[in-house]
Every structure is written in structure tokens, then in C-alpha cells.
């Protein structure tokens, strides 16, 4: 919530003619695995796109579908949720609950005609810095292909630009 609100003021990333669209992606990372994985990617100096804004949460089980929807509504072009591998959750089962919930959310998003690729999920452990960099690269590539997120905008704003 707080991160998306903070980003609200900055508006769209300007995208001039011929320039590549740079998507803005909110990444919810769990404290014990994925955040440490992202840290490791940084420490190991792996290159990955700078389009993600990380929100650290204690467990991926904390990610309610509301957070994903609200991030998209508040102007994120994509959302990435990442947690520990199944079975490795610090709180034993948090990621399993999230997997159930968000899998259905993604299916419903698709059903309502929104590009499902805007919402990505991954399991990244604390030792997988390389995987984290790859996940971010794939996510950014996929969302870049989709273009700006317009379906969560009021029609006038969508047509008139900002």
C-alpha cells in the first residue's frame, strides 16, 4: 500500500516517440527468501533491470489479492510476488496459502480480459541471486511487451493522457 501510494505522485514514466517503454513493476518479496535473494543478486553485482520497486513483507502469505489489485489500480504496470520455495517457508505454510489464492486471482484477471502476464509470481530462495535476476528480467520483458497498464485507468485519463 504505502509504496504504491508514494509512487502515485510521480505519474507515468515519460515515453517519447521511438523510446522504449519502461514499465513500472511493484515487487512484493518475502523477508526470509526472496528479499535475501535480491540482496544476494545485488551483492554479487548481477545486472538486472531497474524497473522494479521492492516492497518487503514478512511472508508471501501476507500478500492478499487486494494488495495486487491495488498496486495495479494505483498505476503499476506489473506486479511480482516472490516467496520461499514450497516447503521452505519460514512460517511453514504461508507460501502455500498464497499460491492457492493468487493462482485463482490470476485466472480471474485473465477471465475479465486483463493481461495475466501483468501479474507474475516466483519462488526464489536466499541463495538464488542469479534466479532473482532472471525472474526480474523475464517479468520486465513480458510487461514491456504488453505496454502501459491502461485498463485500471478511467477512460478519459486513458485517452487524453496525463
Amino acid at each position, binding site marked *: *500500500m504505502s509504496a504504491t501510494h508514494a509512487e502515485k505522485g510521480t505519474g507515468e514514466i515519460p515515453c517519447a516517440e521511438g523510446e522504449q517503454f519502461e514499465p513500472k513493476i511493484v515487487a512484493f518479496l518475502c523477508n526470509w527468501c526472496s528479499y535475501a535473494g535480491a540482496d544476494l543478486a545485488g551483492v554479487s553485482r548481477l545486472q538486472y533491470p531497474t524497473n522494479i520497486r521492492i516492497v518487503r513483507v514478512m511472508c508471501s502469505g501476507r500478500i*492478499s*489479492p*487486494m494488495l495486487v*489489485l*491495488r498496486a495495479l*489500480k494505483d498505476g503499476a504496470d506489473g506486479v511480482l510476488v516472490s516467496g520461499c520455495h*514450497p*516447503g521452505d517457508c519460514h512460517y511453514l*505454510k504461508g507460501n*502455500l*496459502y498464497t*499460491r*492457492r*489464492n493468487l*493462482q*485463482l*486471482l*490470476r*485466472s*480471474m*484477471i*485473465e*477471465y*475479465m*480480459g*486483463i*493481461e*495475466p502476464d501483468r501479474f*507474475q*509470481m*516466483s*519462488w526464489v530462495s536466499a541463495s538464488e541471486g542469479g534466479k532473482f535476476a532472471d*525472474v526480474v528480467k*523475464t517479468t520486465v520483458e513480458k510487461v514491456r511487451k504488453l505496454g502501459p497498464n491502461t*485498463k*485500471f*485507468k*478511467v*477512460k478519459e485519463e486513458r485517452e487524453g493522457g496525463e
Partner: protein
Amino acid sequence: MSDLSDERIREEAKKALREKGLKCVIGWSAEGTPTFASTEEEIDRLSFNRSCVNNLVPYLTYEIRSQRGKTRDGKDKVVVPVGVVVRGCDSKALLLLLNEKILARNEVFIIGVPCSGVVDPRAGGALFRKCVKCAMRNPVVFDVLASETVQEDEKDYSEVEAIERMSQEERWALWEEILGDCIRCHACKRSCPVCYCDECLLDPTDVAIKPDTTAEEKAHRPLWVERSVNVPENLVYHLARLPHLVGRCVDCGECERVCPRRLPLRLLTTKLEKDVKEIFDYEAAKEEGQKPLIAMSCMEDENGFIM
């Protein structure tokens, strides 16, 4: 339906009123109006026919939960049991509430009426769309059954499948039109038998105010969905309602029935039900004592789209 089942409803209701000391029996009058009958004369007005469209379970939940609380010496208040007349789809919702321990089995007296469809007053004498092909015509939980069971159909997913086959642009065009029509009156969540929270995060004005609620608390509620009515907010509202219904929605079609804009909201809940069935092989309110889908440990689930 015949007068035979009416007779039976009244007879059983009277018997239960006498023997079990029910607070009242919730049923329909012959015109289809929800009726609270607490005397034998009032029970004589109960009936069931094709114009009985309301799902009475939300009334039942309210009747029982409003009796709960503590007495002055800190003991639980005694809940006077309440009787209710349910159709097949209503009984599924009731079973779900019993499974979730919102209601206790000994607090309710259930008169089941097998139903072969009710008439949509807005469609000029035609059956409700949900009733044309219905897989839950017979009550699944009841104390007495008012008439013979009827033949059930296979669950019909054809409408959902038709939308699934559309291209993404077509689907968005369809939903954008539907969502553009929504006035967010919240009737769909108000009437939903399985939405029983005292305060709802989807409605910023819906705050359970107690004597000790401070102004600060009221002011600092998170605003998940803003109050403006436009396509994106409506989209978030309808999408956010669904995760709360995962493995709980019994597809009774009450949301669609009460919608003043006549939005086809069952297209969403039926799809959710279909997904739950296909991905997790789970059906809401299938049997007594069933665990909720979201509360089950699930190491064996497919990883699906997860990287």
C-alpha cells in the same frame, strides 16, 4: 408447487414451534415475500411456490447472530433456535455456514423444499437463468423435507466456457461494458449468504461502530476501494470480492437476483467455482464437516504459472 408441500411446511413448522420452542420460522408467504412467523396463525401464511425467490439464509444468520453475546455474569447468552425454509441452493449456503461454525446445527431447524425453479419477476414469467439448469434442486441439509425430491441437472458451465473461448480484447470489451453499468450499491455483497462480516473492507462506509470506537479509528481505516464509481474502481471491487468467495460461493445466484442494474454477476462466481473444481478438485458445501479450501495445507498443489 402443490398445496401438499404447503400443508407439510406448516405442519412441521407448527410442530417444531411447539416442541423445540423456536423463536420464529422464516419462510415465504404465498406472494413470495419473506415472512417471519412466530405464532401458529402466522405459520398458516407460510407457503412455497414459484414466486418464492429470496434466499432466506441471510435473515437466519442475522436472527441467530443478533442473539449472541454475554450476559452480565460473563456467560454466553442462550440462543433460541430459529426455523427456516430452504430450497436446494439456500441449503448449500446454510451448510457452508454450519461448516464454518457461524451457525450451530442445534440453533437451526431446517425445513427443506425440493425446488424445480423459481420465476424471475423481471423476466415476465420465465425461470431465473440459474434455475433453467440447476444441479442443486434438492436440499443437502434439512430436518424435514416438505415434498418428494426432484430430478437434478448437470452443472451448466456453457456461458462461462463461451467467454473463455473469446479473445482477450473481446473479454475486456464485454466486462468493460458490464462494469461501466455497475453503480456499486453493494447489494451483491449485502445479500450474499456467505458474506457475514460485520464490517467489509470493500465498503469504506461500512464500519462496525462500537461504543468505544474512537474518531481516530474511524478516520484511519484503510481505503482499499475508493468510493468513486467508475470502471477501474468497479473492476477492483468485483475482482476483490471474488477471493473472499473462493471455495465458499455456492452459486445461489442471489447477487445477480438483487442487482438493480441486472448485471450478470453469476458469470464471475460460476467461473470461480469452475476454477476451484478444476484446479483444486474442491466443491463448496459438498458435505458436512468439510474444511475450507483456503485453510488447507496444500504441498501437492500445482505450481502453475509460478516461475
